[in-house]
Structure formats: structure tokens, C-alpha cells
């Protein structure tokens, strides 16, 4: 098993009602696997932030893995490492 530190910001923090948590995943899991596991916990509303109804990636939430931005459409199947820090972020604009 491996441990992933997940941090939530803005809209998604309101949904999950947490700033951060640790998630256990089997070795070799990807970002998509992480989202699947979190969907079990937080339901369809959580899933809808990341995917359109037809399964396409919805570019609503920005994702970072260990400080680097990741594109779910391109990098979703890439393996996560034990101890990785994944951040779900929605930028606040309006400067």
C-alpha cells in the first residue's frame, strides 16, 4: 500500500469539508484511481467536478502532484508515488 497526502482548496474544500487528508492506495495506483476512491467517499458531486457526464475530463479543477501541474486528460494514468502530495485547486481570479 502507499500513502498519498491530498489537499483541497476553494470549491472542492467546501464539498469535502476538509483541508487535507491521507489516502491509502494500492501500489501502482494512478491519479484516476485516486479520484475513483475519493468518489466512493464523496459521491457523484465530487465526480462531477472532474468529469463531464459523458466521461470526458472537465477542466474545472486544477491538479498538482508534488508541486507540478498535472493534466488529468494526459497524465491521469501516470502512477503516483508513495508519499506524494496531490492538491486539488480552483484558482480565485478577479484581480
Amino acid at each position: 500500500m502507499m500513502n498519498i497526502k491530498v489537499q483541497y482548496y476553494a470549491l472542492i474544500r467546501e464539498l469535502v469539508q476538509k483541508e487535507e487528508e491521507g489516502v491509502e492506495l494500492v501500489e501502482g495506483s494512478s491519479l484516476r484511481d485516486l479520484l475513483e476512491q475519493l468518489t466512493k467517499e464523496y459521491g457523484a458531486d465530487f465526480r462531477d467536478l472532474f468529469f463531464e457526464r459523458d466521461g470526458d475530463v472537465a477542466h474545472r479543477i486544477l491538479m498538482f502532484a508534488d508541486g507540478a501541474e498535472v493534466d488529468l486528460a494526459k497524465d491521469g494514468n501516470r502512477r503516483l508515488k508513495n508519499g506524494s502530495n496531490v492538491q486539488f485547486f480552483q484558482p480565485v481570479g478577479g484581480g
Partner: protein
Amino acid sequence: MLGGYAGKILHVDLSKRMFKKEILDPKFARAFLGGRGFGAKLLFDHLEPGVDPFSPDNVLIFATGPFTGTNMPKGQRYSVVTKSPLTGGYGDGEGGGHFGPELKFAGYDALIVKGKADKPVYIWIDDETARLEDATHIWGRGVFEADKIIKDDKADKLVRVAAVGPAAEKLVRFAAVTNDLYRHAARGGGGAVMGSKNLKAVAVRGFGGVEAANTDEFNKVAEEAMKKTYDNPGRKGMYDWGTWGGGGGWDLKQYNLWGIHPTRNYRSGYFENYEKIYGKNFRDRLLLKQRACFACPLACGRHALIRDGPYKGTFVEGPEYETITMLGSDCGVDNIEAIAKAHQMCDDLGFDGISAGNVVAFAMECYEKGLITKEQTGGIELKWGDPEAQMALLKKIAYREDIGDVLAEGVKIAAEKIGGSAPDFAMHVKGLPLPAYEPRGALGQALAFAISDLGGSHDRAWTYGEEITNPKLDRFSTDAKAELVKNNMRMRTLPDILGYCRFVLLSYDDYAKAMAALTGWNITAEELMTVPDKVTTLTRAFNVREGFGRKDDILPPRAMKEPVVDGPTKGRMVTKEELDKMLDEYYLLMGWDKDGIPKRETLEKYGMTDVAEKLTSRGILLS
């Protein structure tokens, strides 16, 4: 002394050349906290209704918040509050940099300026000592030079200066107050009011500090807050890309894909050449380095150098998202170097860059429609996308030459003077030019613009992000928008009150912990959350006393009668029915009546019975 506050308010009467220090009342501090909370109450109390904004009787307030000058990350804001010469209502602007902290280090939470000097002066505050200095040698000079001369006069490079440029001296209604050369309390017309008072600058040097009631606890909370801010991906986005994005975050490109990027005086929300003016191009061609305000880990400021072309050698801090849009796409300009040059001109002439771009775009459309002629422009061919024409016009506005004299009044008054169809495409609310977001792009944002106490400003609520990305919301529906606007406005107003920059925010609980340690008050997140609502109700009461009401909570005719011409929001408008529905819901949530007048019970709930009495004494009926 109360922790978190300097403990004094400084009154300056320019006509009588009198200074007076007032001890900060802890009850007043607890009720309004600081920043524009202080400003709103002081303006309401010190200004009689009906006063011309350019009259010596108008009041100009500089106010810091409890976080200003502390080790909270981004604790550097100050507010400039006055009766706005653009709207005739409540006006303010919030500035970053170092001026706010310096004012507090000198010993003052706020500065209240009244009267008019008989010749140009600047206010010099050197810790406890405050006096007026002659400013005839800097009158007429640009902001950059004025800042340098004052520092030279005082032989101290660490003097912090908030100055105005030639635009303010000529009473251009959208003149800004500029501090630390490139930071602006821009939008409320405070610069123009300074000009009307013959006040060229406020210069401050302070050697004190800000004390906390519980120093160890506050240091701990501030350190945690710094860590949270630093870890937030938004911090990295701001550091890497500034306010206009381009990589890790929403950016100018995204706004085009959403159809909310004002183009050619808001005819469209899509600029076909956006890739020429967005973050990546800026970084590759102009960026020198990031620049931070006091105690800020974001460093969203950009030092830039123009390396090629006719403006080669120009140094500028900026442009940022708002000016790149208003001086860029909204005028049809797609040349990044030219936009940077125009931004630098706005800084030095002393304009609010948002309003300046909006006004030039308006003038370009007037020229296209034949409402302004080449004779009136003094020979300028005022064509869309021509940066030379834009810059020539900016100079004429600053010095009120030719048509610049009319445009210096802002788009509302200028449109009335120019006549014909001009008022139909004058893009303002209550007289304040709209900022760099298409009002037809989302209905919540349309409501936010319509009800803003300032007029056409996104300083109060910015809801596009949530309206577009939250799958539970439909941006073209009125559903749940009043509540969204109220909550967003609360979230963005509280930082202005605390003296805290609104980029990358903390939670209300975090603010409460910091305030408790700083002041020693037993203060909760719930109490803090009521203060922005109270201040919003107070500024509403100010505007009601000046004659504003529901009739003024409206968008420009272009947004309500003309569909967006192309791009992703093509065909969109905001109807009167949609706006009315949202206004009803919003007033109800705020405890205001159907005409948008705060109810007596609402004012009493917030402890503002004095405000209720002042309204009724003016014949305003409260329900």
C-alpha cells in the same frame, strides 16, 4: 493600548493648516475593525450629504487595518475612502506596497483630510510629527518624479509616498492615488479628490511597530498562516504568472474561452489575438523579475523591461490583468510592448488604468461612429487597435486638451456631453467604468456589478469562477446567484477591512484566531463574518442618503439591449426581468427593502441606530 492598532487617528484640515490627534476608540475599532470599515463609518459621520466631491468640504480618508504592518502574510493593505467624483456616491480604493504599514509604524490607524490648501502642499508624517510641506516644486510632475523629489528632500530613500500625478491636478475624475510608485488605490477617484485639495502627496516615515495582545500566540498563528499561504497552489500561480495567469491557473486565454474578455468596448467577450497579449508572451518578451509588497509570499508584481521596438528601454511594473485587457483587447490593441508602455504612462500621469482603458475604448467607438471628429481629437486618428493614438489620447485626457477635456469627466458624463447614441455604449455602472470582465458572461457577476456600492467594479464580488466551474450552477441562470454574490462579497470585503490582500485567502476561522491573538478580544469567525455585511449595509446607507436607490442598480444599455457579437458568449444579454429577480433576492438577503434601502431592523441589528436616525432626519423612510 489595544493590540493590532496604532491607537490614533490623525485629522488634517488643509484650509486651516491644523492637525489634531484623536485616540482610537476601542468600541469603534471592534465594530468596524479597520480599513474600509473605518473609512465607511468615518466618511458617513464626517461628510454632510449633497457635498460636491471636489468641494473643500469633501473628506478623504486613508485607513489601515489590524493586519496591516504585522507579520501576517500579505498584511499590507490600506484604503482610500472618499465621496467619489465619478459616481457622487461612496468611493474607495485599496492599495498594497509599503505605504499602509509605514503609516501604522508612524502611529496612525487612519488619516482624515478635509479642506483645501491655498497652494500645493504635501502632508509629511515623521513618526509623531506631522506637518504640511510646500509642494510647488513638484506640482505638475509625474508620480515617479514626485516620489523621487520627496525622498531627496527628506534625504531618506525609505520614506513611503502616496502621490498623485498631473491627471489629479487637472481633476480628471478617474485619477488614482499611487503609492510606492506602482501601487494604486485606484478606483474611487481618490486621486482626483487629492488634486482638488491641492494635496500632491502624503509622505510617511515611521519607526514604531504593531504590538499584539498575545505576542507568542500571534507569532504562531501568523507563521501557520504563512505556511498555509505558501503551500496554496494559488501562491505559486501568482508568483509564476502574476495576475494574468498563463500557466498554473485560469488566465487570459481561459477568459477568452469562456467569452468574458472585454474586446472593443465590450462588443465582444472574445479577442481573436489574445495569444499575443497573454502571460506566456509577456514572460518571454518583457519579464525582468517578480516584485512583492510588504510581507507577501506571492509577489504578483512584475518588473518588466521593453527590449525591442519604439518603446525600447521603458521600465515598468506591470502591466497586470486589468490593464492588459482594458488598454489591450478593449481598445483592440494586440501589441504587448505598446500595452506595457501605455500602462507605464497611466502610472506616471496618475490614472486608474481600468477607467483609462475603458474611456479610450469608448472614445474609439465614438470616433468610429462619427460622434467625435478628427478636429476634436486635435488630429488624432482614433482607430481601434492603434497604440500611438491611444497614448496620444491618454496625454490629452491627463492635461484636458481637446476632446480629452470631455473624456476626463469619465464615460458617463462624457457620453452625456457627446450626446447621440454615446450613452448606449458608455460602459459604466453609477458612473464608474466597468473593469476587465464582460458583464453578459454570467448573471451572478452581472448582479455584482449592478449592486456594487462603488459602481462598475469587481472589487466587491467576483463570481465567474464559481458560476462557470461549479457543475451545480448555470452561469446564464438567476438561480442561487443572490446568495453567491452575498457570500463572495463577504469573502472579498473582510480582507479589505482587515488590511489583508485578497489574493489567496485564509478561512474565517484563521482570521478569527489571528484577530483574537492580535487584539486580545474574544472574537469568533461568526462575529467577523457579520462585519463585511455591516459595512456593505453602511455604504448602501451612504449612497441612499446621497439619493441612490434601486433605479441605479442597473447595467449599461449595451449589456441589457445588445447581444455579445461573437465568441463563446455570442448572443447573450442580461434582461431587466433577470436583473429584477436577482435584485429582489439580494435585497432580501441583505435585510434591505424592495427599493434597496436598508431596513431599520437591519441597521439596529448591526448596532447602527445612529445611521438609521441620520437617514430618517433626511426624510428617508425606513421600513
